[in-house]
């Protein structure tokens, strides 16, 4: 690819991957967290990443919007390679939505303000327009009536749905989820997963780190299993759950499906 910026719509050719990760390596100090990761994600594809704790799942998806910096290999998001260039980073980040395990809502802003802040300041939308989009997405995640409350007044499940709406307000091309339900009570997991399933059905490209295997089975196009910083195995959910290739995957699945 040449450095001359291609017109935006040329990227929209259907089979171009939206994320291309090539020989990605990352270290924390001397600790080699990610080893030779190759991964490409097509538009509208839904990928579920699982693996034992400490295997590097969070690190991998945080590299995709450069919350973590990698040392070797390349990551290309939407046609732009991730480098140190601040302007590019912010552009990519505004096109890549992220949902965190602990929601990370802004406690000093109302639910609606949480949703409209970035559209106003980053996308330069007018307040009226941003409010409109914000209310539309809060309606989509089924909490329009909470718009003027503060995050601290909502339940965990509601907060996570606000976090999803907040990310969607930027009209991202990809959504990253890092264990979005693991800080929630069982009753609330369901409402968040439902929201995510609806989002998946609407055609959003999604990378989801989760241990919710029901969700993986239902929406994933591909399930990726990671261990010790490597991708051990990837397959469609049917094959992944029913006849995993490696023993490591079998062991992991037996542990996770036990309870």
């Amino acid at each position: 690819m040449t450095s001359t910026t291609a017109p935006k719509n040329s990227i929209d050719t259907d089979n171009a991957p939206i994320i291309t990760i090539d020989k990605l390596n990352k270290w924390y100090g001397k600790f080699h967290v990610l080893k030779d990761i190759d991964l490409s994600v097509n538009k509208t594809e839904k990928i579920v990443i699982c693996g034992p704790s400490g295997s590097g799942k969070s690190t991998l998806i945080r590299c995709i919007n450069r919350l973590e910096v990698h040392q070797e290999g390349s990551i290309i998001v939407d046609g732009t390679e991730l480098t140190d260039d601040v302007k590019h980073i912010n552009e990519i980040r505004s096109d890549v939505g992220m949902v965190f395990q602990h929601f990370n809502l802004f406690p000093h802003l109302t639910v609606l303000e949480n949703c409209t802040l970035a559209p106003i300041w980053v996308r330069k939308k007018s307040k009226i327009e941003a409010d409109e989009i914000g209310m539309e997405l809060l309606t989509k995640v089924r909490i329009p009536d909470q718009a003027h409350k503060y995050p601290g007044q909502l339940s965990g499940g509601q907060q996570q749905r606000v976090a999803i709406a907040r990310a969607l307000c930027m009209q991202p091309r990809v959504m990253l989820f890092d264990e979005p339900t693991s800080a929630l009570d069982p009753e609330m997991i369901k409402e968040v997963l439902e929201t995510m399933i609806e989002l998946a059905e609407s055609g959003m490209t999604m990378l989801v780190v989760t241990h919710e295997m029901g969700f993986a089975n239902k929406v994933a196009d591909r399930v990726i299993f990671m261990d010790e910083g490597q991708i051990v195995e990837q397959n469609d959910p049917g094959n992944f759950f029913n006849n995993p290739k490696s023993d490591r995957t079998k062991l992991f699945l037996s542990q996770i499906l036990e309870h």
Partner: protein
Amino acid sequence: MSENSTNFIKIPDREPPINSIGWLAWIRHNLFGSTTNTIITVLFFYFFYLYIPPFVDWAILNANISGSDRSVCDANKAGACWTFIKVRLDQLLFGLYFATNPEEIWRPIFVFALFGMLVVPLVIDSTPHKKWLLMILLTIYPVIFIAVVYGGVFGIPVSDTGQWGGLLLTFALAFVGIVLALPLGILLALGRRSEMPIVRALSITYIEFWRGTPLITILFMASVMLPLFFPSGVEFDKVVRAMIGITLFQSAYTAEAVRGGLQAIDKGQNEASMALGMGYWRRTMLIVLPQALKISIPSIVNTFIALFKDTSLVSIIGLLDLLKMSQNASRSLDWNGYDIEGYLFAGFVFWIFCFGMSSYSQKLEQKLDTDRRSE
């Protein structure tokens, strides 16, 4: 919505029990609840009885306020001599220049009145546009203050800053210190946490240098050394020198207070705003600072209160602040011997300002306490 389960019967809500049975029970429980409690209560009322009535007698019931010289007070030694304060009020509040130029005295009165008009609405809940009021107080007000009190514009004669004094000087020093140190302190606090090593090192050096030096030393340095840095002939105003010294000193303390708030912000806040594509300054101004400043309000105001009181150290470089002015006045031939009244008055004025700041900060804290779950 009928619940289908057969064994779930909803118990209707009730009012909470009333556990206070009038004021007698309150007193018994709270003042005489235990032996220790009883002893403390008794001792308290004993000392209260021992000291308060005589003080009230002296300060209020027997006090002198009439007349215009010491003869009234000398005739009635059992009471405080507020006549002294009354006669010297202009001098104590506005300093010698304005006390000796009665036709100019509207100038300090005007700026204090304006200050009151800006501050009182800030404390009242229902005032609209408080943000703008605060902005005016912090930006336009200082300009008006200089124009009116210092003069030199609109035909207002220039007042000699060397003759500024009393509350006016105390107020001017503290106000400048607070208004300039706040933005400077915020920048320093941000610098101290910067990812750029040079910015970080400079901020740390600055903060630790000024924090480790007593204000008295800084005032001496400002008054003796500052002129050395400028070509001879550049006459540096003594008040301005004190202001510079105070601001440099105060900004280091404000920075540390702000840093406390910055440290308390979860790093997820920064990450979430990064993930939305916000750059450093947007994250800082919209997400991090609003939360960090709220947390650090009590400690920031603490530094303001400390500064307000510390301004009395300027007497060491020959400036007559409120305290020094009270002392001087009570040592003048006319009023020699009435220093207690002078000190009490100065202390009382200091207290009003400091208590005001403290109350305002508590109010602000409560109002900004939004992330607590509603009741």
